[in-house]
């Protein structure tokens, strides 16, 4: 593992509060994930890849923006690993960089319709942008 990845891994673990070593590889998170089809890397892979320092592919994956933060994996994990928190920490490590926002304010008007509640916009901005 490169020094850079090692730093990134410890930052992700620290800010998420997740200990990926607790995972027993049962895959219940992935078995329960409603965004499975949209994701390239699935919740159990996030846990495993962060643990083994193979984080690079995650940084560039659209999976980061497909997680719904529905917490199904968090509640159903028998080991209390909380994969969604890990996904969020990896995403933050990307979008906190200058100019790395996934969703830009200028893009929003085109995505709106008349009924869409404010809640959707602020939530998406929170999740996708800094």
């Amino acid at each position, binding site marked *: 593992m490169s020094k850079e990845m090692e730093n990134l891994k410890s930052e992700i673990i620290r*800010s998420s509060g997740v200990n990926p070593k607790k995972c027993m590889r049962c895959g219940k998170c992935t078995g329960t994930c409603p965004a499975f089809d949209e994701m390239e890397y699935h919740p159990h892979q996030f846990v495993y890849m962060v643990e083994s320092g193979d984080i690079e592919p995650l940084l560039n994956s659209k999976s980061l923006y497909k997680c*719904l*933060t529905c917490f199904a994996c968090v*509640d159903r994990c028998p080991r209390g690993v*909380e994969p969604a928190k890990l996904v969020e920490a990896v995403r933050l490590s990307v979008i906190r960089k200058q100019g790395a926002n996934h969703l830009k304010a200028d893009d929003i008007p085109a995505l709106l319709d008349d009924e*869409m509640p*404010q*809640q*959707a916009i602020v939530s998406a901005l*929170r999740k996708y942008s800094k």
Partner: protein
Amino acid sequence: MKKVAYFPGCTLKTKAKELDRYARKSAEALGFYLDEIENWQCCGGVFTTSRNEIATKLSSVRALADAQKKNQTLITVCSACHNVIKQTNHAMQTDEEFALKVNNYLGAGNEYDGKTKVLHYLEYLRDEVGFEEVAKKVVKPLTGKKIAAYYGCLLLRPNSVMAMDDPENPTIIENLIKALGGEAVVYPYRNECCGGYIALEDADSAKKKSTSVVASARSHGAEIIVTACPLCKYNLEKNNPEAKVVYFTDLLAEALGVKEDGNE
């Protein structure tokens, strides 16, 4: 009349005005008053789980601190606001480092110690008012209506923090429906995600999730789906135009006879 601190949230002031209005009217019919806290700010819609996210949680902490100053329980109606505020409160109670940083922001004299009790309107009805009392005040029972509760994610999860109900087999909205004289339809997708904010950038993904929810409710015989969340309502309606989705406060106001007719 008993006053409780109330955090309406931005959507309840715009797209979901009826969620707010019927919550207030029903409260008064049930003998409590939603005392809107001053200068509240948007909760942000989602709780950022990272422990080093401080700024985005300050608006929730300010709301919690305001309620504490009034020595009142803090009530929310919107599932999203509720989720964010309850999780923020939990972080203030359990994560010392986080709490310290937050209080540094708030400045001396404005610190918040995590003591405010946060309840969802539904919890307040169940635990403080009592569904039996609610039932006694019903003037127009929802007799014969097959109503499916849609919890989504935000009301129930993470259960260790929300602690509102059994996250896999909840009963709180069903019991409210029964108290209002309706027939509660139980179906397995009531605690599955509607797609949430993904609707903004991946409408197909949201469509898939919300159509399965509605299909599940219908296959179990539901005529009406009831929710506490504007975004859930949007996703379910948008992707299932034929489905009838209403806020729980709508049904509540109707049953209590405080829903004005016509222009709504």
